[in-house]
Each structure stands twice: as C-alpha cells, then as structure tokens.
C-alpha cells in the first residue's frame, strides 16, 4: 500500500511538469498584454513598452520559461505582476474561502444526493423516483448563476435570512462562517447533487438486482439494512469515483459562484488574473488546482480498498 502511495505521488511530478509546460505555453501564445493593462488607457505606446521591459515580458520564450521553471523547482511560485505580492501569499489569502465552499458543498451534496439516489432506486418507477429524476434534470440544466441569483433574491433580499455576499473566516466563529456559505453551497451543489443522485440510483438498481440481495431478503434482513449495509456499500465504488471526478466540476463552478456571491476565493483570483494577464498568478493557481485534482483522485483510489476489500494495491 505504502509503495503504491509513494509511486502515485512520484507519478504526479511528470504530470505537474506537463501541466506547467502546457499552461506556460498557452499563456505565452494567448493574446493580451499585462503592460498595457498596467499602464492604463491614457498611457503612450512608449510607456507600455517601458513597463513591458521592466517586467521582463520582452524576453524570449525559453528564457522566461527557464526562469519560471527554476523558481518553481525551488518552491517559488513567483510574484504577481500587478499586486507585487508573492503568488503563494495571494493563494494563501484566497484558499480558505474556496476550500470552505467546496467542503460545505461536498458535505451538502453527498448528504442529500446519496439518500435521494438510494430512495429513488428503492422506489423505482414511483412518484418519488420521478421526482428525484426531475430534480436531477433540473440540477443539470439550470446554470449556477441563475440558481445563485434566485436564492439571493429569496433568502437574502426578500426574507433577510442570509447575507447576499461575502465571506467570514472560520476563525471569526461558526455562525458568521456558515451563514455566508449556505446560499453559495446550495447554488454550487445543484449540479453535483444531480450527478451523484443519478449515479447512486443507477448503481443501486444494478446492485439491488444481485443474488446476494435476494439472499439477504430471504434471510429476513430489514429494508434499511439491505439498502444501506448490503447494497450501498457495494455500490459505493462508482459513487465515490463520481464524487472525485465532480471535484473538477466544483472547481469550475466555484469560479462562477464566487463571482455571484462576491466570495474572495481562488476562482475569482483566477478570473481576475486571466482578464489582466497576470501570468504568474494564473500559472500558480492552475498548478495548485491540478495538484488538488491529482491528490483527490489518489484519495479516491485509496478509498476503494475500504469499500471493496478485494481491491489491493
């Protein structure tokens, strides 16, 4: 097991290197000029050129890539062109809101979607099943920002139950922290709930038709025990896989959600950096996202051994 974990962690190094090369090249080829953005609309072409030189943006591709790669190798993500702050500091400032949003969304989504899928499979063909499937279609179809605006209108503006926007650090207390996250998590979780509920239902339907379930029933096992002990555990591997894949959905959705709810997270940092062509920040954040994604998939792979003892690494 440990050898497998170490092998997987080592395998992330070439993956991250390829991501780094790809991201750097893509940004190099993309149009846009941070010097023009910095100089402002009234700047002369000569001013823009001077700023470009001072930022080293006039250097050749290989020189720039070499310098950046060397810094990354030494653990330095670089300095933002615009804020003059280390990229690691900017990520540090922004990681808590995004992590909070993702964790709350994940907990919310799994705790709603799994029981929904189980019940839909149990009550296949009934009104409950159709309701769950209709909800799943709705979750897939309605964009995050629409859900966000509707929720903010109802629960913040009309009812005044929750704030419209912002983020309060966890260190300031649980209630201020959670009240800022409820609406964004529901908005972001819609697609995720739909995805997990559908896969749970489909997998459970397959498992519920297995011989061992019939045997359990014949032995007089209760319905709850059949569903949640015998069936769900055996259906868990595909569900957990989808939960892992869905982290990518969450990262993408967080960009929109953080804008709608003015949450100062990594998603907004990424969008702002892209619009301004703040290359070091874009590169740093994408590397981080890639690493998180690789790590989550490793954890998912390891979790298989818990749900299915036949799997050994």
């Amino acid at each position: 097991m440990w050898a497998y974990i170490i092998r997987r962690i080592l395998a992330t190094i070439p993956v991250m290197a390829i991501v780094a090369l790809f991201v750097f090249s893509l940004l190099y080829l993309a149009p846009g000029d941070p010097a023009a953005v910095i100089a402002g609309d009234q700047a002369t072409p000569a001013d823009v050129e001077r700023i470009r030189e001072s930022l080293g943006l006039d250097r050749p591709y290989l020189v720039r890539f070499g310098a950046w790669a060397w810094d990354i190798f030494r653990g330095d993500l670089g300095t933002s062109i615009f804020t003059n702050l280390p990229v690691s500091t900017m990520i540090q400032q922004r990681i808590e809101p995004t992590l909070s949003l993702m964790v709350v969304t994940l907990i919310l989504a799994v705790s709603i979607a799994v029981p929904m899928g189980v019940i839909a499979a149990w009550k296949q063909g009934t009104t409950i099943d159709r309701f769950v499937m209709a909800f799943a279609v709705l979750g897939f179809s309605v964009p995050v920002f629409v859900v966000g605006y509707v929720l903010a209108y109802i629960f913040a503006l009309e009812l005044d139950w929750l704030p419209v926007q912002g983020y309060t650090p966890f260190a300031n207390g649980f209630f201020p922290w959670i009240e800022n996250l409820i609406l964004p998590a529901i908005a972001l979780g819609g697609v995720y709930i739909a995805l997990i509920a559908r896969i749970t239902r489909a997998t459970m339907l397959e498992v519920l038709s297995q011989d061992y379930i019939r045997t359990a029933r014949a032995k007089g096992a209760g319905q709850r025990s059949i569903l949640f002990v015998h069936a769900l555990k055996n259906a868990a591997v595909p569900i957990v896989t989808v939960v892992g894949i869905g982290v990518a959905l969450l990262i993408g959705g967080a960009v929109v959600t953080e804008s709608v709810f003015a949450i100062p997270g990594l998603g907004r940092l990424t969008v702002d950096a892209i619009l301004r062509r703040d290359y070091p920040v874009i590169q740093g954040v994408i590397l981080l996202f890639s690493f998180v994604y690789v790590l989550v998939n490793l954890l998912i792979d390891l979790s298989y051994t818990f749900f299915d003892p036949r799997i050994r690494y």
Partner: protein
Amino acid sequence: MERRSFLQAGVAAAAASAGLSGPALSQGAAARTLRFVPQANLANFDPIWGTQYVVRNASAAVWDTLYGVNDKLEPQPQMVEGHTVSSDGLTWTFKLREGLRFHDGEPVLAKDVVASITRWMPRDPMGQMIRAIQQELVALDDRSFRWVLKSRFPKLIYALAKTNTPILFIMPERIARTDPFTQITEYIGSGPMRFVRNEWVPGAKAVFQKFDQYVPRNEPASWLAGGKRIMVDRLEWTVMPDPATASAALQNGEVDWWENPITDLIPVLRRNRNIAVDIADPLGNIGSFRMNHLHPPFNSQKIRQAVLAAMSQEDYMRALVGDDNNLWKALPGFFTPGTPGYTEAGGDILKGPRNMDLAKRLLQEGGYRNEPVVCVVAQDQPITKAMGDVTADLLKRMGMNVDFVATDWGTTGQRRAMKNPPNQGGWSMFHSWHAGADCVNPAAYNAVRANGDGAWFGWPNVPSVEQGVTEWFEAPNETAEKAAMDKINSEAIENVVYAPTGFFLGYQAWRRNVSGVVKGPLPFFWGVSKS
C-alpha cells in the same frame, strides 16, 4: 423571521451554541465603518506606476497633493502654504504648510516633494513637458523648494493640481526614489487615511483607517481641495465584479455606497426608500471611436469624415445608457460640456440629421476599395461592447467591409499598440472612452493630441492641432485659451483625430444613513459620515 433568528432556530438550537462565537460588531463600530463598492479591483497600489482610475481613487485618500482642484476646476493650495513666481515667470518657489506628517510619523520635507515630482514627471504628459524645460528642482530647506525653468510654463500649478492620472502624490523620498516604471512596495502617504496593508486582499478587499495626525486645511472641502476631514474611523472597499450582487448588497444594507451602479439596475435602486441615487461625476465621460491613421481605410481623411457624417451619437448613447435622457448629450466636439473651455467650433458635421449619402460620397472620394475594417471590440467592457455593436451596424450600412474582432480588454490593449497593417495583426478601429475630467482642456488630454508617433493609439499627425495645443499652453489669459481650444476642436474634427460618440454620465448610489456624498470625478471620502 430574520437572519439571526433563522440561523439560531435552524442551527444553533441543534448545536452547542455556547462554544460557537457570533459576530460582535457593535452598532457604534458599524457606524464608524464606511463600506464602499469601488468601480474596479484595486489590483495594485502605486498611482504613478499604474494609472488606472481605481488606483487614483484609492490613492487620493492615502497620499496628499501639493495643490488640488476644487469643484470649479480651480487649483487650490493643499500641502503648500503658498508659492512665489519670479517676474520672468521662470523661478517658482514653494513653501509647505506646517504640521504635515507621513503615516510612519516622519515629517513631510521638501526633499520628499522633490523626489516625488521627479518620479511623477516621466509618467505624466504635462510632467514630461515641464521636465523638458526644467533647469533645476531643489529643496531649499525642510519646508521650501525651488523649481527653475528654462522657459515659461503658465500651467504649472494646474499640472500639480489636476485630477487625471497620474496625479502628483507626495511620497517619502525613500519610496519616491523608485523607478517610475517599477512598482513601489511601501504605501506610506501623508493623506487623511492610512492604507491597512495587512488587510488588503487584491481583487476582494482594501481597508483604510483614519490618520489621526492629519491636519486638514481650514477651508471647506471641495473635491481635492480644502479641509479633508474624515468622519469615519475605517473605510472598507469590497470589490464586487457582479453588479447584481452589488445591487442586492446595497439594498440589504451590507454595503453603504456603490460607486458605479449600472443603468439597468437604477430603477430597482430608486424604488428602495433607503437608497439615494444621483449622478456620480458631473464631468461624465466621452465615448471614442478611435481610428488607425496609418493604414487604409482610415488613413484617408475623407473616409474618416464619412464616419462622422454617418454616425448617430444618439444611437451610441442609447446603446450605452438606455432611454434615460438625463444621462447623455450629443457632443459635436472633443471637450467636456459644461466646462469653461467647452466649444463646438467646427462641429457642424456631427450636428443635425445624419447624412448617409454624404458618407457614401466621401467614401468614394476617399478611394475606399472594400478593404476590411478590422474593428477590435472588447466584449468584457459594457461600454465598448455596446458601442462596438452600433459601429458594426453603422459601417455595414455605409457599405464598408467589416471584420469584427470580438475580444477582451486585455487583448485590445495589446493589439491597439501594434502598427502593423490590419491584415497583419494590426487594427482599423477600436472603442474606448475618456473621463470628462481629463477632457476639460488639452493639458492632459492625450487622445486629442495629433503628434504622430507621440500621439495616442491611431497616431494621428495633424500639425494644426498641435499648434492649437501649444497656443493653449502659452495662452496668457482665458480669452486666448478659449481661442486655442476653438482651434483645436475645429482642426481635430476636420482631420478626425478620433470620432466622439457622445457625452454620457453615470450614477452612484448610497444608503440614506450616509451623508456627505458629493458629485465629482472621483469618490471623495472626506466629509462623508454614517449614522
């Protein structure tokens, strides 16, 4: 059921609430914190290195100026006690007023001023003109400095007081010694508010605190002039990229003042009795259809004039501000309406019914050969996007071959600097807009300059316009200034330095428990209080 009770009922009852802390902001503390939604993200904080308006707006609270313009556009002493000018107009001697201190407790000295001026000059068009004729700039003692010029520059005080970027902000010498093309790393000013650097989250939040040692002038505050009295302890800027979110936050009382609500949301805000809505900046903005004078088709004066003959400024303005007629004006000229230098001289081609027949005839006379007109239009800026859609339709109706490049502002910024032909990565036209405060006269109005390679993007080369600018700078009195501006306007229209698409205003909105908000070219935080 309201927010706190909802949460307590739904969550706290089930939890061990004794161990979970809640917000502890008292009513008094809330009243002493002004929460502001700025027009854009404060991504950097060096008003000389980065000349975006949002940086200037934040900087005006942190750094003070030698002079400041008031709401009559008159320069007034701010950090200086006064100045004297030699009889030949070449030697200017300034004296700082007493009691000026930086936020680190150090006194403001003349050497700080000299270093700040030296850093500002290469980045400012007027500064560059002054530097070209500067003989000497020296500190005489702690509070006095002398500026000796080789030739007269009557607009010197205006250059030191103006509101357009970059403003001459005074920094400590050690910071002002930074190369003007390199960003500073310390944010120490002597203005009425202190920047709280450790709470700055670029893209999200910026915090300013009242600077207790600031000594305001005795005169009433008026824009950048007079006594800058801060009435709150703390100013929090919250960046909200989504206007709908900012609108909801203002309605919900989560923020106090929103700098630039979009026109579509104004009716919603006006319906809320807790919110006041008014014009933000009476000097407004001027829309710009900027043409490339180097390459066909707009290297032809007649083809540029064809655009003027056909364009309907009303179409552009309605695309920008909708049906609110209070928000726009036709503009047969280049200067800001309502200001002393405003002129419509030579502007007939922009007045009256639009003349498509004349436009087509001018196209023919200009030798238009169906070359593609590469329109580079930033879609992420509502102003340029709206104007770009009108332009595409206009040029097509004129019979031009439109190559519409929908892109973002960052790419527009890069592409407009390219002098290549349009079919080799260059461009034919792009849209922008200019703050009215920058267009009250030619002093800092880059876009109206027509000095070829030294001009703004599009590189118009019209010596008669430049002659007018020189006459304005040398004008001994207001009559001569007005005559120079008439000349600039008529020559710039005749040669179509650029095509003005109209004059438009924007709103600001604030909670009614906030008082002291004024109209101006930037948000002024002095005199604003909250109950």
